[in-house]
């Protein structure tokens, strides 16, 4: 799993039926210190009622995501599975800042 920040939402009127009724979010992976990591932006299905600006847990691993969704045959690879309240790294609180 990765840490990420929601940077956008998507509207996709024409899509594979597996995505019907699911919210799509644009997620930019971040390092634990809050800086953007070198990873490129992911699109993920929302399973945590996350919104723009939220720091989230991103599953970007494939079969485990299909298991979470309970859809073994869905062409879905990434899902947002949690909204992060706090990140602590080596005894220091990195998020929320300050």
């Amino acid at each position: 799993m990765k840490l990420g920040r929601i940077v956008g939402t998507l509207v996709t009127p024409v899509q594979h039926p597996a995505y019907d009724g699911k919210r799509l979010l644009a997620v930019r992976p971040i390092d634990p210190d809050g800086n953007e990591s070198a990873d490129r932006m992911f699109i993920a299905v929302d399973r945590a009622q996350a919104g723009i600006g939220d720091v989230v847990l991103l599953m970007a691993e494939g079969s485990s995501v299909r298991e979470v969704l309970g859809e073994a045959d869905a062409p879905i690879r990434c899902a947002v599975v949690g909204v992060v309240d706090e990140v602590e790294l080596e005894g220091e609180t990195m998020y929320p800042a300050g």
Partner: protein
Amino acid sequence: MFLARVIGRVVTTQTYPGLTGERFLIVSPLDEHGAACADTLVACDVAQSGIGDTVHVCDGREATLALDETFVPIDATVVGHVEQFAHESADGDP
């Protein structure tokens, strides 16, 4: 899964048997500002996309699950046509 723009099309006359009739597009991955951010790749299409469209691409093993034949040598499929991308600083098309 990532955001991309369709920049081209690939026509094949001889393919692996399970890929007969599939459409192939050349897509360029985009970042949140709509700028190309990685090397282009070829993707199958199930969202009736055309050149210039902003699309949602599923990669990896899951790419084949969007197709009728799910055990084929495909690692990227266009699964959605993006009409709007609401960005944290501005709304609208990427």
